[in-house]
């Protein structure tokens, strides 16, 4: 069993790209890391905030690979990122969301602050979806608990890195199974596209650059003039190919080469 990962990002219709991402693998290949940060704030500060969070994670990556209690480590690391982002931007507000997932064998540990999301898709169904730290999500929970009516306000976060309040990252983990797909994305993806259809598609499709490209385009076209920055990272847990598949693949490869060389003549 092994992981196939890919990432893609698009500026959308905005002037600045304030999304940042990180896709990394430990030297021995046993750990993978996927991170998305979606900056918000002023013209420049949003991107700086997101970059600061990514840099902070990158600086601590060796410790992350080696951590024996990833849940606790991720929580602490996100708080560390918060401190780092607070130092960015000076008097202007510079804040960022953050969602990160550490993959270790068939276990995945994730944490988030804000409205960038983590999804775990199995057999076309969403098994896990993080809950945004946003007003709509709060109100959704409130209206489920009581019959109190509240109004929706999109894009309002009550918790993000770099904002002048304490943060409490949410962390969780999961044991994955063969064929499971993980998706990390900024709100440019999930708010501009029919996620039910997209998740079904992501679950069924191989992790390939052209697929990511097509999903980004779908999200982008939904709001042509003013599309938000879009970022998505996908990881799929796939089984070892059977002997027959390996043999066939080799044959195809040889045939492919032959075909190519013939074209050269």
């Amino acid at each position, binding site marked *: 069993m092994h992981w196939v990962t890919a990432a893609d990002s698009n500026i959308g219709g905005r002037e600045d790209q304030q999304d940042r991402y990180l896709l990394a693998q430990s030297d021995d290949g046993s750990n993978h890391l996927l991170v998305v940060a979606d900056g*918000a704030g002023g013209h420049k500060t949003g991107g700086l905030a997101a970059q600061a969070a990514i840099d902070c994670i990158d600086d601590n990556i060796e410790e992350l690979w080696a951590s024996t209690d990833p849940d606790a480590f991720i929580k602490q690391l996100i708080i560390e990122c918060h401190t780092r982002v607070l130092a960015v931007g000076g008097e202007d507000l510079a804040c960022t969301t953050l969602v990160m997932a550490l993959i270790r064998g068939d276990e995945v540990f994730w944490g988030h602050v804000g409205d960038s999301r983590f999804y775990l898709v199995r057999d076309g169904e969403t098994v896990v979806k993080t809950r945004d730290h946003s007003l709509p999500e709060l109100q959704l929970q409130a209206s489920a608990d009581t019959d*109190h009516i509240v*109004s*929706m306000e999109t894009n309002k976060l009550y918790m993000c890195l770099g904002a002048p309040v304490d943060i409490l990252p949410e962390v969780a983990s999961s044991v994955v199974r063969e064929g499971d797909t993980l998706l990390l994305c900024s709100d440019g993806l999930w*708010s501009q596209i029919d996620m039910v259809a997209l998740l079904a598609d992501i679950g069924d499709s191989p992790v390939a650059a052209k697929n990511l490209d097509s999903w980004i385009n779908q999200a982008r076209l939904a709001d042509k003039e003013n599309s938000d920055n879009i970022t998505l990272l996908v990881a799929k847990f796939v089984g070892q190919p059977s002997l027959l598949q390996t043999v066939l693949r080799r044959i195809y490869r040889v045939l492919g080469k032959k075909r190519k060389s013939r074209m050269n003549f």
Partner: protein
Amino acid sequence: MDYIRVYRGNELKKQFELGEGRVTIGRTDDNSVVLADPGVSRQHAAIEYDDGDYYVVDLGSSNGVFLNSQRVEKGKLKYWDEIQIHNFVIKFMAKPGLGAADDDVAAVDAESDKTEFINITDEKQLEKLRQKTKQCFLNYEDATGATQKMMLKKPRIIIGKAKHADIKLSGWFTPAVAATIERQGNTYELVPTKRGKVIFQNKAIEKPAQLTDGSGFIVRDMEFEFYNRLTQTEE
């Protein structure tokens, strides 16, 4: 009778009674509900009645239709659902004017669609929310008959004879791994193995079963109780 109320920001704009006919929502005057804003398409959405239920349908709008923050092509409505169209919010409800006074609805700047950070004024509520965490643990009797409580902190808990098992079982025919408890975000699954003799809800199971707060199960004659409940933490 079912109603929809149309809000923009904290302001109630319209209230509309739903019948069995199709209700169209859009920018131009020929719609049942007119939302005069350039961000709304001419024919933006419709609310359709079908066999006792109402559905919201996107009529190919450019900015989309959102049902409780999720973009939908077509979605079934239940009471208290909120439909978002551009910067309007449409609430679906059983009776007109039920629930909160308009004062309860927080003021917003509905013009901007950029992500913003806000300070929640009701800090007590937020504190309460932050402190709510789920505690997840297993209760079982060990070989000496003493009751044990194990907090589930790892994504996978192994029950069996193996050295690395988190809960050790004895017995000649006990497999190394009789069953595992696997975390899936906020839920947990009991995953049996072939010779684990796992019994859940009075039945031997071969496929993973979802555990809920208070679930009991048996692995190779050892009885377990699973708990997953909200608690207030000291943090």
